[in-house]
């Protein structure tokens, strides 16, 4: 066998292996997706949105409590996390540039993005839950805010840096003070990018379970008081799925389906914003 033939054969073998592993990987992921969709659609019904949790065996049980609780916890996290993240990102891009302090904030944020979220839960337990004496929706929101912060900060930083400096200079030349230039010119130029960062940040924290386990805890009934333990879709999903009752497990799949669809649409929406921006 000549060298060339040998190389061609090796090439074929490796390419087949690579295509197979791609197929295997994608196959597994498709399998999970199919299970999620079939189980989710199967469990979905109107009562899921209108009824609260009930003991296993009751027909009229739903996820209203978890959906509303999730909305509260994630909304408050967004409410705190977005302004803080955007302002911190603004400092990095507009004021600090490549200074040492800015670089270390960037590095720490990058690391925080991949840090284990359950540890954030333990931290919030120590600073909020333990002093208060009980679990609360606030504690959950604070944990999610901490997780969201570095994501929003880094995308804002990146997106603001993409705004051409000529725009800033033109505004300065008109005599505008720096904060006005940033708020009225730079933010506008980076609108789509910042929005994408926010959507991805919200999508990321909406799927978090671990930091909520011992901060917002859970509640099988509707509660809108943030200073009390509060249900979330993810923790409810975990509790229902690990329960031995079939109807609870079914509700767990419905929650999984609703949550994934929500997160996927946020991700797709975020991508569309960025694509539209690039198209221009």
């Amino acid at each position, binding site marked *: 066998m000549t060298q060339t033939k040998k190389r061609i054969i*090796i*090439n074929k073998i490796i*390419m087949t292996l*690579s*295509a197979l*592993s*791609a197929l295997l*990987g*994608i196959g*597994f*992921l498709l399998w*999970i997706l199919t*299970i*999620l969709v079939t189980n989710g659609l199967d469990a979905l019904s109107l009562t899921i949105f209108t009824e609260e949790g009930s003991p296993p065996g009751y027909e009229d049980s739903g996820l209203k409590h978890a959906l509303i609780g999730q909305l509260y916890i994630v909304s408050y996290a967004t409410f705190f996390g977005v302004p*803080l993240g955007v*302002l*911190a990102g*603004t*400092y990095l891009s*507009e*004021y*600090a540039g490549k200074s040492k*302090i800015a670089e270390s904030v*960037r*590095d*720490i944020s990058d*690391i925080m993005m*991949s*840090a*284990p*979220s*359950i*540890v*954030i*839960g*333990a*931290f919030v337990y*120590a*600073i909020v839950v333990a002093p208060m004496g009980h679990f609360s929706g606030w504690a959950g929101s604070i944990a999610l805010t*901490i997780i969201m912060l570095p994501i929003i*900060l*880094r995308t804002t930083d990146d997106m603001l840096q993409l705004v051409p400096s000529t725009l800033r200079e033109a505004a300065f030349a008109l005599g505008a*003070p*720096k*904060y006005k230039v940033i708020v009225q010119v730079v933010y506008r130029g980076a609108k789509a990018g910042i929005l994408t960062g926010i959507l991805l940040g919200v*999508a*990321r924290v*909406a*799927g978090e*379970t*671990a930091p909520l386990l011992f901060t917002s*805890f859970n509640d099988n009934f509707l509660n809108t008081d943030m200073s009390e333990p509060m249900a979330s879709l*993810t923790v409810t999903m*975990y509790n229902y*799925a690990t329960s031995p009752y079939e109807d609870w497990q079914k509700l767990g*799949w419905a929650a*999984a389906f609703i949550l*994934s669809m929500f*997160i*996927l649409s946020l991700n797709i929406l975020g991508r569309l914003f960025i694509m539209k921006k690039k198209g221009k």
Partner: protein
Amino acid sequence: MNNTLDKIFSNSTKLIAIGILLLVAWIFTTLFQNSMTSIQTFGFDFITETKWAPNLEKFGALPAIYGSVVSTFLAMILAVPLAIGVAIFLSELAPVKMKAPVGVSIELLAAIPSVIYGMWGLFYFVPIVRETVGGIGISMLTAGIVLSIMILPFMAAVTRDAMDTTPDILKESAYALGGTKWDVIKDIVIPYAKAGIIGSFILALGRAIGETMAVTFVMGNVHNISLDLTAPATSIPVTLANEFTEADSDIYYSSLFELSLLLLIISFTIISVAKFYFLRRGRMA
């Protein structure tokens, strides 16, 4: 007027940005302070002691550390070749029309919450493991496999990004010399993108070791060091998820906080290695 507003705006942005650094320092000190009781009681034995018995107030982290290391190691062995395969497929092999849709789907799968991978593992994968390799299905092996599938999309996406940074002109020159696809990948793409590829593997490792929900469902939370992969086990995050709300004594809480601190230090170290040695300001999210 404008001057004051300007000062207020710039100073508040600065305050918040520096606040991030303080926040991280606060997280470390809080976890450390809350671990004090455990550190003083057990000292270094905490890491080497194999017995975790809350009723006897005896806490040793070795089974959890062992479980974290072994399950992550299993996940890496399984996920790395698959991720390389998917990345080669996406960056070199797939027809142009397939690249974008398949690539985007993989990235979207990386966004699916890990709790869903855990649920899938519990209901669909545990029975398969039980029937094929025996045991009760809830085991170290199951956790490793579910973990590997969970990190696969992330790993494949970052590895592909790293491979895609190879300039086309380099690849084309190699093809012009008569190289096969594999020649080009092994002699051009991989050497060129080596740092990025290794970095993305280490980053995925950092994420896998702190992953809670994908493994909590299928690991069993049994504090036992067993060489039998089909036996139930535990890991640091699994212990935290299962026991934090059950802890009933100061020393129990303190031990759990020490576990959190250990986990944070381990993942901070791994992620920093990925970031500072391999991925200079690359894609982290």
